[in-house]
């Protein structure tokens, strides 16, 4: 993936997949959110170029595409890290100290919520209740769930797991 040509090929393939998906829709009207979901699934995030592509393809002003992307917190314009970290900020987790855990992650990684580390390894996000309130506070790394995370040491241990 380090050579430019192969990278371009991969990206071209992604656009092709998105284009095919849009073409397969029986009616493009009112499908913006569905298309953006698909686009984020394919690209991992919604960079400017992808939003312009979606707008042109659906015949919707790009400003409106951006309006929707910036409105819904699910959509992101930042590429997610190889290991996306999500901290539950729902009520149960929050009262049990999710804010402190968030601060630990921020200091350890040197990034804010919604950002990705420079090496692309970790990204940090907040999310609402994952339905595991008994384990509060809860942290997710990719699909893996970590419960009862309360100390800086525990945060460091989690991050250590992903040392390559």
């Amino acid at each position, binding site marked *: 993936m380090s050579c430019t040509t192969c990278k371009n090929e991969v990206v071209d393939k992604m656009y092709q997949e998105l284009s095919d998906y849009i073409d397969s829709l029986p009616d493009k009207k009112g499908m913006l959110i569905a298309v953006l979901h698909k686009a984020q699934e394919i690209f991992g995030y919604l960079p*400017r170029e992808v*939003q*312009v592509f979606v*707008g042109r393809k659906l015949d*919707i*002003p*790009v*400003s*409106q*595409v*951006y*309006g929707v992307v*910036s*409105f819904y917190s699910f959509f992101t314009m930042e590429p997610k890290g190889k290991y996306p970290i999500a901290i539950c900020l729902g009520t149960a987790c929050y009262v049990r100290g999710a804010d402190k855990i968030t601060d630990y992650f921020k200091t350890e990684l040197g990034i804010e919520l919604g950002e990705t580390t420079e090496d692309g390894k970790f990204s940090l996000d907040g999310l609402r209740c994952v339905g595991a309130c008994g384990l509060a506070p809860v942290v997710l790394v990719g699909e893996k769930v970590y419960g009862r995370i309360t100390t800086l040491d525990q945060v460091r241990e989690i991050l250590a797991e992903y040392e390559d």
Partner: protein
Amino acid sequence: MVHVWIDVNLRQLLENNVKGCNTMADIKLTIDGKVVEVPAGSTVLDAAKKLDIHIPTLCHLDLHDTKMVNKAASCRICVVEVEGRNNLAPSCATPVTEGMVVTTNSPRVLNARKVVLELMVSDHPKDCLICEQSGNCSLQYVSKKLGMREVRFEGKESTYKPDKSKSIVRDMDKCIMCRRCETMCNDVQSVGALSGINRGFDAVVSTAFEVDLSESVCTYCGQCVAVCPVGALTEAEQTNDIISALANPEKTVIIQTAPAVRAALGEEFGLEPGTLVTGKMVAALRELGFDYVFDTDFAADLTIMEESAELIDRLTRFLDGDKDVALPILTSCCPAWVNFFEGQFQDLLDIPSSAKSPQQMFGAIAKTYYAEKINVPRENLVVASVMPCLAKKYEADREELNQDVDMVISTRELAKLIKQANIDFNSLEDEEYDQPLGESTGAGVIFGTTGGVIEAATRTAYEKLTGESLEKVDFHELRGFEGVRAATVPVGDFDLNIGIAHGLGNARELLEEIRDGNPRNFHAIEIMACPGGCIGGGGQPYHGGDAEILKKRQAAIYTEDERKTIRKSHENPAIIELYENYLGEPMSPKAIELLHTAYEPKDRV
């Protein structure tokens, strides 16, 4: 209780639908103890207006003739109490129902209105003294009307990066999220430069990716500025540049006045809409210190010479069997329209006329022919314009147009200059334009309204094509206010099919039709970006949503045309002289060099 109300409402709406629009029954209701009857489908706000009860509004805007209705009902300033309904109702979005009892001024209503206003003002800059909209601001007006003396809520104030383009300045700190600009940009103009972005406290109207307007698909039509109730969207002012130029003894400063300005400037001085103030305007400009006062109408006549020559050339080739000739020809006087097709109809760039706009033709002739004539070096001649338009500011700055026009002010800015100079506009004696660039015909003046450019072109093309003299110069079939119009004008034994659109949304409709193969077989199409044409331009006095004002301005333009002794561009003696002594003939190499331009696709978001 609420449910009952909704049921009544729905039933009423259904009944109205069954009855159809033309036979809508009147609904009787009571507002502040007074009984009123209004057609079904009216809002409480409409009904109150009929009783001369003026409920304050901020976000609401209904431009009846231009499809623009902003019914966001988001500001909640217009709330009223409806008997039998628990919560207060926004009068702008609440339909009337039979027997409804409304109170617009109960203590509960007044208190709610005040709280809403206080919350709004808590996140609004309080620098009214230096705000461009001061005196015209709806928020200021409502605040005064409600007698607001304190803001009890203190909190975070939103701040955004200011965006200053050549035409429009965006200071979104002042935005109250009424979203009128967004409705105008998307629903009426179909430009799509603006959208509501983000959520909650961070929500604001912006461009895609929050780029500057200059990187967006914005056409600078300025209709967003025309409907902004506060100082969030304003014009890029150039009055100070004018004052400096006038103060510089080394410069000869000349000014041109666009056709639509004379039909609206008077409104800024309390005159009835539609009052023609041509003579007073000329006198005021002379008093301001301009060395020569000229008329863009002269350049409009020149535009007709070039544009009709182009039309005749294309038509002749078409009739001779040339299948590749680019038809229909599209007018190119309107700079917002040019920006629109360069951005959004890049596949059709070969069909617009290559003729520059009258403003730019004037500049090109002033800085060559006229500069030579009065023996002033180009660099010492300052060409200023007063335009009803904000896109003209951007146009003057386009690189390929060589700074032929140095500075552009709007009708509103001219009024400000006149007021600053302590000139009592209404008592000025009428004066005449200077010669030769002030000589014009009735064909030049109607450029200011929708249908005017194509009527002017038809007057000239008819005579050139048939060799006959045109007795009846009024083409009523080309006039009117409908967004898209079509007419067929017999020119000898040839039927000339003409299309007209005003407002960019209507223009899009017509352009898509052309893209789909031109089924109505149009030969020539006139487009003006603003509803009503230049009379409704983004630089005109604010009409506050009253479409009647636009119609009065339009009538004034046609009156000016009728008053002219010469009403065909090619009979303008100053134009005839210009061709004889300088340009040769329309579309000559010299004319192409000075009076024509080319279009570039512009990729923007």
